[in-house]
């Protein structure tokens, strides 16, 4: 492990020109312009056969492909009124947990850490924290292993399909994953202790936190849309409650609430709204952080991703144990009828709730589709935060670092915003 060079990863990620433009952006107005590089995926989907939906939709974003795969499949199933088995539902939850582990650990340990420690020289990070980096790689590896075994591969999953799973893992594979998960939990907890020491900026702006709610589920794959301000509607109703808008010169369909105000989602929203549903170790860690809820400091989103990472490791093991004692074969795709219909699917993903609306004709071809990604939803909120933050600070030095901290906290996904 002597050859680690963390900054390389940051250079690669930074090549998504958008991030650089934020960092060098016009700080005074704290607005960001995303130039049009849309792949027009929604347009591409219209007229395609329903089976192509996940294959095409997951290519909106390599980073979030697992999320797009699961939500697009659920939307088609809802529209055609297809029910899948409990085992298939479980496999999807395990897949999503693997996705959270992979996504959160990449973001926490490989993209944020050097920034949070204010380390410009990557050699120093490697020398100072070799143990932590080794553990972090193992945690990420566990998330990817889940995705490989359950989904077929880590990027653009293959096995999950409309009606269930094309191929299922063997009991032996599930058992080997359980062993790995149990081994990784203490390492995640050690990493969380390390993360606790990091100093995050002090800033607070009361806002609305929106996420999905379902009884007994912290990370819902369906359910109602709720907020800390009393919002409680079905996901399908969200379209009437919120409206999409677009700014000239950018290819993002943003969303705003009824009151024309921006809202926040993702880890910080979920923790604020339903921390009681967290797994045991995750809840203990949350309590030990001593953050008072409701917590309106956007920088704490990073700490809450750490809480969720613990949660997902625990939950993945729990779900796999249940699956190992059930009839996994039921998860295989069963026959279903192609039906006309339209529906909405909403699922909690690492960056927040991802929505898909789809309209399918009686032959199974897609008539219309609308995708609302987490980043498209919280981008306006981030700008509002930046504006408030900038107006409060007196010393306007090191602005680049401060803007970087915002990007880190929000875990922006540019590919999803401009789909």
């Amino acid at each position: 492990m002597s050859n680690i060079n963390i900054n390389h990863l940051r250079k690669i990620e930074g090549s998504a020109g958008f991030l650089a433009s934020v960092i060098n952006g016009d700080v005074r107005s704290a607005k960001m312009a995303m130039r049009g590089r849309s792949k027009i995926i929604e347009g591409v989907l219209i007229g395609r056969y329903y089976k192509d939906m996940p294959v095409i939709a997951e290519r909106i974003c390599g980073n979030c492909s697992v999320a797009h795969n699961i939500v697009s499949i659920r939307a088609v199933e809802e529209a055609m009124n297809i029910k899948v088995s409990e085992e298939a539902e479980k496999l999807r939850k395990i897949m999503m947990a693997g996705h959270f582990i992979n996504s959160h650990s990449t973001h926490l340990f490989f993209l944020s850490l050097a920034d949070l420690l204010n380390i410009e020289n990557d050699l120093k990070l490697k020398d100072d924290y070799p143990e932590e980096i080794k553990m972090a790689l193992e945690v990420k590896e566990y998330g990817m292993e889940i995705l490989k075994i359950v989904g077929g591969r880590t990027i653009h999953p293959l096995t999950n399909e409309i009606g269930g799973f094309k191929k299922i893992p063997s009991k032996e594979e599930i058992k080997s994953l359980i062993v790995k998960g149990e081994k990784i939990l203490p390492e995640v907890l050690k990493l969380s202790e390390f993360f606790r020491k990091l100093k995050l900026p002090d800033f607070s702006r009361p806002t609305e936190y929106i996420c999905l709610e379902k009884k007994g589920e912290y990370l819902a794959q369906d359910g109602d849309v709720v907020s800390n301000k009393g919002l409680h509607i079905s996901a399908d109703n969200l379209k009437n409650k919120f409206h999409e808008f677009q700014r000239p010169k950018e290819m993002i369909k943003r969303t705003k609430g009824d009151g024309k105000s921006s809202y926040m989602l993702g880890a910080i929203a979920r923790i604020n709204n339903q921390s009681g549903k967290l797994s045991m170790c995750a809840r203990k860690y949350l309590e030990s952080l001593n953050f008072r809820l409701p917590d309106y400091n956007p920088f704490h989103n990073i700490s809450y991703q750490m809480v969720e990472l613990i949660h997902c490791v625990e939950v993945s093991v729990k779900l796999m144990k249940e699956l190992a004692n059930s009839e996994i074969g039921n998860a295989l795709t069963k026959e279903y009828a192609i039906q006309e219909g339209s529906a909405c699917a909403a699922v909690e993903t690492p960056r927040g709730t991802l929505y898909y609306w789809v309209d399918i004709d009686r032959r199974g071809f897609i008539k219309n589709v609308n995708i609302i990604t987490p980043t498209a939803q919280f981008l306006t909120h981030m700008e509002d935060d930046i504006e408030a933050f900038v107006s409060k600070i007196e010393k306007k030095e090191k602005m680049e670092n401060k803007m970087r901290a915002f990007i880190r906290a929000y875990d922006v996904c540019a590919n999803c915003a401009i789909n």
Partner: protein
Amino acid sequence: MSLSQKPIKKPKIAIISLTSCEGCQLTLLDLGEKFLNFANNVELVDPEFLKEEKNSGEKIDMVFVEGSPMSKNDEQILLKLREKSKLLIVLGNCAAMGGVPEIANYREEKQTAKHLYKYIHGVKSEPVKEVDNFVKVDFVFPGCPISAEEFIQYFPLLWESIEYGKELPKISDKSVCAECKEKGIRCFLLDGKPCFGSMILGGCGATCPSSGIMCQGCRGLCSGANVENISRGLKNMMTEEEFENTTEIYGLRDDIEAKEKIMPL
């Protein structure tokens, strides 16, 4: 310092995303420790180098481009990259074959950007075109996404071609079909199910057939394949419409049609 202690020259490389899902870059990141070791043995040039004045500084050794140029800005980046690099290498299906966004080329007006967006600045209404329509491409890592193992395997050979003037490597012309046979995966065709594997370039380890999905051709045609015959056989198992739709997903349709034009029935 003695000669033996002379530090090994590290290749200068840059990885640039045009319009894409960035999944090919992520595939490399997912190599974990292997990738970190790789990254430590190269000099990763910050994409900022593009902003430098024309012809200033020495050329970088290799640029890796993922995605397809879908805006004027993308096109300009591509031209600059070619000018400033010794080798221009494309990563993945979008850059090599147009990828999923190329489906729009086969669509009607109402399904284009105008249908979805109020403002359509910077979105070209022209067809999606692969990277080699704009600049010379020296090497292609095929696939959607690329195979990270293949990247690690071929990278030293690319470097040798620069350092020692060796010939550029070629990905061995073996079909996906052959890989299925090696892995013992039951052939789809035996069950009367279509699969494009016999005309498609292998190297992916037959990832899709291993997961129960027919090969849809994301790695492109293998040069030895009798495309005309295989297509005719497949059209006995699927309708013309299904054939077209399937080959559109990874931008294979225009390549097959081009072959059929060369060898008419």
